[in-house]
Every structure is written in structure tokens, then in C-alpha cells.
């Protein structure tokens, strides 16, 4: 089994991508709604990632 070494950002981005695909498929009823919701989830995950990252950076002093 090959070993992968990902950074925090790469791992979180990959997590967001896989989760967004599944959430998009299972929650909506039409393909268009699924695509939009999947992208919405992906953007939401990434925005949260940056927001939390900055919050931790600023909170750390």
C-alpha cells in the first residue's frame, strides 16, 4: 500500500471534496440541484477552513 503525506490543507480539501460529492447526491432530487448543493457544500467547507485557520492564527497571538 503506497503511503501519502498530505499537508493539513490538502487533507482537508480532499475531505471536503469527497463529503461534498456524497452530500450533493443524497440530499437533492434533481441533477441540477445536486450539482449546485455539492458546489455549495464544497465552497462552504473551504470557506470554513480558511475562517477557522485565520481565527486560530489570530487567537494564538
Amino acid at each position, binding site marked *: *500500500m*503506497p*503511503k*501519502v*503525506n*498530505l499537508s*493539513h490543507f490538502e*487533507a482537508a480539501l*480532499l*475531505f471536503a471534496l*469527497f*463529503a461534498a*460529492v*456524497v*452530500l450533493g*447526491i*443524497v440530499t437533492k*432530487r434533481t441533477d441540477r440541484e445536486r450539482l449546485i448543493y455539492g458546489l455549495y457544500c464544497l465552497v462552504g467547507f473551504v470557506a470554513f477552513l480558511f475562517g477557522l485557520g485565520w481565527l486560530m492564527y489570530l487567537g494564538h497571538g
Partner: protein
Amino acid sequence: MFSREKSPKEPRPPLKTWLPAVALGWLVPGGGHMLLRRYGRGGLLMAAVAGMYLFGLMMRGALFTPKVADLFTTIIHCGGFFGNLASGLLYFLTVWFGYDQPDMPGMVHDYGTKFLVTAGLLNVLAMVDAHEIAVGKKD
């Protein structure tokens, strides 16, 4: 005042309408959708769940074993084990072929462990979706 009327209970759909799709969806992520002829969605679910699981393994994530101790430990280990088990055949193949690894300290390993559990939880969502399609609640 408002009177609350009890709506009559919907009859439960027979087991044979949804059980094969849900069981196959558990064993093979996306398999339930494929059985119900939703090949596109099934393929995407399979790619997402299996992809997440394989990345978890390649990051050297650990699989949980059920452990009963204090409440927190019990929730973490039993919940994690349930999450791992929900990946179906991927979990069994990992254990049978000896790819399960001990828990190691490190950021990447920790992410890997979370990837392995989340893959199973995403598969639970896929199984619920397959159930809704099979009983006709969803297209």
C-alpha cells in the same frame, strides 16, 4: 384552541422492496443505487466513499476496535468501530488482508483515521438514500 389530529400511520414498505438495495449498499458503497439502476449516482458514491477510504488507508489511518471503559472512551471506540464497519466490504478486506494499522501519533495518521470513519458515515447516508429510492419516497 387547535385540535391535533392524528394522521393515520403509513404502512411500512415490505422488507423485500428495500433490504437488497440497502444490504448491497452497505457491502459495496454505491451498490444499492446500481441495483436500483441509478448507475451515475451509484458510480459517484462508490468513487467518493471508496476514494475517501483508500486515502485513509494510504495515510496510515487506524481502524477502531470496540472498547468499553469510561463513557468518553466507549463512545469514541464503539462509534469509530461502527463508522469503520459501515464501509462494508472495504473494512472486511482491510482486516482480512492485514492492512489495518496500529494507531500512531502524527497529523497525517490522524487525518487518515478520520477519513476511514467518515467514509463509513458517508456510506450510511448513501444507504439511507438507497432506501428512500427503493420505497418510492425519492426518484
